[in-house]
């Protein structure tokens, strides 16, 4: 019986190709919009997630904003905290930015160097292409050594930099390590970087104290715990919480994700409105169809069709109409998303979830908006229906 109903629905849709197409158009557009927008937003989200994962979502940056010499967060205190709470804090590094005028013949590569400790390169998930990183000895003895990115290595030394001497603001530093390429080896990318022992960097700058730290929690779950430990330390050492700020990457990531999520929700809501409009279109056409087929309904009833037989027939037809529209929309939307991904140079693919949800939603729209006309058809009085022409 259901199979027969299914066949009849197909026949009825085919016998009115043009009208069926027009009716489906709304669903097609709505589902295309939903699929492509959701895929695009998902692509964007995963791009952002990747970016955060590179830095490390467990990173917490501590900045002392008051430059008065009395306000200080000594490295010893930070070191003690990290060692005492190794279950929460994976590691830390001071981060001292020093201006670094690096000369390439007559050209000045206007870069800056960062003073870090021996943990930094690991924490930041850098890999060494050759040589070694900054060591504890380098830090303790304030050795003038540096680890450089591929951009600097390429620009200054033409690639083969290990063991050579780099002039930073007129001071010679020995290149002890070269980092693996992380960006695209251009200016301003992550490969345009120079790392030196933080003690050297701090000595070079005027204040000589450490104003910035980067702390890594052991994992995403311990970020909050690490944050509050740092908070306590700052409170003890500095006191006034106007003088410092603690920013967890996780919080930034979460707020960014929140923005992306609400953007996605808004776009989907707009698409959903178009789906409701499409549903009303289906209802409209089904009402016309019921009126046109009043006589057919009368015949079926006179031959013994029950209300539910007629109801099933029309609901099935509406459901199928919108399911076909949904499938076409899913195909169009996927193609659009993939095309947009190619244009934006992003890896965008519609998720299985969004496809399943879209299909279910389009089926539901058909059934929901087809129900009222179908109910009307089912309730027709057979004599009146038979007399109708």
């Amino acid at each position, binding site marked *: 019986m259901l199979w*027969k109903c299914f066949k009849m629905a197909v026949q009825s849709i085919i016998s009115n190709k043009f009208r069926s197409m027009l009716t489906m158009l709304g669903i097609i557009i709505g589902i295309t919009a939903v699929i492509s927008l959701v895929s695009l937003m998902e692509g964007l989200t995963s791009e952002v997630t990747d970016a955060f994962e590179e830095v490390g979502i467990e990173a917490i940056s501590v900045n002392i904003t008051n430059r008065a010499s009395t306000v200080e967060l000594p490295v010893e205190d930070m070191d003690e905290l990290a060692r005492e709470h190794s279950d929460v804090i994976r590691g830390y590094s001071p981060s001292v930015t020093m201006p670094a005028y690096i000369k390439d013949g007559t050209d000045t590569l206007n870069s800056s160097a960062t003073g870090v400790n021996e943990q930094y390169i690991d924490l930041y998930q850098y890999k060494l292409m050759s040589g070694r990183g900054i060591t504890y000895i380098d830090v303790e003895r304030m050795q003038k050594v540096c680890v450089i990115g591929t951009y600097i290595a390429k620009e200054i030394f033409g690639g083969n930099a290990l063991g050579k001497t780099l002039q930073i603001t007129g001071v010679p530093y020995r290149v002890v390590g070269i980092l693996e390429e992380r960006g695209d080896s251009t200016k301003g990318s992550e490969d345009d970087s120079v790392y030196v022992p933080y003690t050297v960097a701090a000595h070079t700058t005027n204040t000589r104290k450490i104003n910035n730290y980067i702390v890594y929690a052991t994992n995403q779950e311990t970020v909050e715990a690490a944050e509050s430990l740092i908070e306590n330390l700052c409170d003890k050492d500095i006191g006034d919480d106007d003088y410092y700020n603690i920013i967890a990457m996780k919080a930034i990531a979460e707020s960014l994700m929140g923005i992306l999520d609400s953007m996605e929700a808004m776009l989907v809501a707009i698409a959903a409105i178009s789906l409701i409009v499409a549903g009303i279109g289906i209802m409209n056409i089904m009402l016309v169809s019921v009126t046109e087929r009043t006589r057919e309904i009368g*015949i079926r009833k006179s031959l*013994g069709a029950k209300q539910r037989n007629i109801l099933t027939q029309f609901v099935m037809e509406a459901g199928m109409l919108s399911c076909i529209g949904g499938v076409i929309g899913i195909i169009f939307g996927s193609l659009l998303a993939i095309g947009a991904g190619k244009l934006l140079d992003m890896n965008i693919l519609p998720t299985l979830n969004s496809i399943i949800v879209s299909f279910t939603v389009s089926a539901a729209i058909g059934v929901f908006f087809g129900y009222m006309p179908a109910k009307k058809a089912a309730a027709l009085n057979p004599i009146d229906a038979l007399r109708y022409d």
Partner: protein
Amino acid sequence: MPPLVELKDVYKIYKMGNSSVHALDGISMTIEKGEFVAIVGQSGSGKSTCMNIIGCLDVATRGVYRLNGRAITNYTQDELAEIRNKTLGFIFQQYNLIPKLTVIENVQLPLLYAGMRESEQRKRALESLERVGLKSKAGNYPSQLSGGQQQRVSIARALAGNPSVILADEPTGALDSRTGREVMMFLRQLNREGNTIILITHDNSIAAGAKRIIRITDGKIVYDGPVEGDVTVMKMHGAGEEAPYDEKAKGAT
């Protein structure tokens, strides 16, 4: 055994604002199994109303209608649909075939709604089409058939469910007189095979093909008896025309 069809003092009153139309004004009749009854009357006399009630498409305003001894009152639409499906076969003036279904699919419809298996439906529908001589047209669409053939398909559809009563409302109304007579001959044959047939017509020459005539005027029965007793029909015969369905008369010439 109760009679197949029994109407007792049946009224059908249509209220139109202040006035009311007595489409059926106290009708009583009994029809036994195996009869071939023609209900005749002029346009607006109440024939179709009567058939709608007998056919369980409508219910009487007042009075009792029993089908197979079962009083048709207080049934839901769905229950009436089931009674129609099991006990009644309809033949309409406009054939009422569904144009987008093939001939066999049309004939299968009552069997489909009876919940029969697809293979069984096809078997029965083909048998039924064979009886009306249209087995070869099973895969055609109604629009590809002549009017007479379409009416035969609708007869096949009425027969398919093996109903107790076949109800035909002006079955020849849309056909030319020759094809109309053919359809009539076919109904007579079905009757000889044991089917109970109730035929509705305003055409006396068609009515003459039945065995019994019930004449209605203004919602009242004015004659109920054998064809030979009906003045109007016999008057027509008296005019010198040969009774078209009188096989005995035919054989004599």
